[in-house]
């Protein structure tokens, strides 16, 4: 069904350095994204035409999401948020290729991305308010709420990573069950829903929640 990440080989022959299929497909998708980005941004013109329009449309759409939530710093966070959008969207879509598991169907990938967002949000909060001012903000509005605020802060990366992981794995399990019950062409339209629609929506949601966490830490 969904056996989780499979160990393909071991790095340098050491048993504590496993190389899973998630790692390999993740790196392949990174290389494909780099090639695609190089192709889209080669030969830039002041009056955009053709492929440059696609790139500008995407960048402007991401910027319009960031700017209302983190005012005045849309261009600063654009590379980070756009990278999350592109990588997760591409990883979800690569699961459409038969026999290729999606890298986001592995908790290691999603938890890693969520931890990066967690670190960035706390770093930005500390830079905005100073270290002591940021620590004091956990004791708001009364000091007794300090443990509650800390637990709530630690729950953020967990729910952030499990949301993406649960959605992708759940969709994969449902499609596998229907393939076993009704093989043939019947489950094919379901890929449009579970892989295309849910995959792209979850990439958007992961990026938007990342923006929201950064914005909450900064104010």
């Amino acid at each position: 069904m969904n056996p989780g990440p499979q160990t393909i080989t071991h790095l340098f022959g050491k048993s504590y350095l496993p190389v899973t299929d998630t790692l390999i497909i993740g790196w392949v998708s990174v290389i494909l994204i780099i090639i695609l980005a190089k192709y889209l941004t080669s030969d830039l013109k002041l009056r955009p035409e053709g492929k440059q329009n696609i790139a500008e449309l995407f960048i402007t759409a991401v910027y319009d999401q960031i700017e209302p939530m983190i005012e005045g710093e849309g261009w600063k966070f654009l590379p980070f948020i756009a990278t999350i959008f592109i990588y997760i969207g591409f990883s979800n879509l690569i699961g459409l290729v038969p026999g290729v598991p999606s890298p986001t169907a592995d908790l290691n990938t999603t938890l890693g991305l969520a931890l990066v967002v967690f670190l960035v949000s706390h770093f930005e909060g500390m830079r905005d308010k100073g270290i002591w001012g940021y620590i004091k903000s956990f004791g708001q509005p009364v000091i007794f709420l300090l443990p509650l605020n800390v637990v709530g802060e630690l729950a953020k990366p967990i729910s952030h990573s499990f949301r993406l992981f649960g959605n992708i794995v759940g969709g994969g399990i449902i499609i596998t069950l229907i393939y076993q019950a009704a093989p043939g062409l019947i489950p094919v339209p379901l890929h449009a829903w579970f892989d295309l629609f849910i995959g792209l929506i979850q990439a958007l949601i992961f990026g938007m929640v990342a923006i929201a966490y950064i914005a909450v830490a900064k104010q």
Partner: protein
Amino acid sequence: MIEFSPGTIEMIIRSVSVIAAGLALIAGVGPGIGMGYAAGKATSGVRRQPEARGAIVTTMLLGQIISGSTGIYSLVIAIYLVFA
């Protein structure tokens, strides 16, 4: 007192964990109701103020994401119970 063999105990644990996974998914009712309520309110908000559509949709999505977390937790627990 009935004595069970280890194989029978293994089987009981497996079947009970599958039933528990089904029960855990009852938690999907709550987020469904909550997210539908938020979407309904957002729809009436867009009808009243069509020019504020972007801000309303963004706020609605964020609220739905937060309230949908409980459903995701139950799904993950169900997956864990089935494959444990």
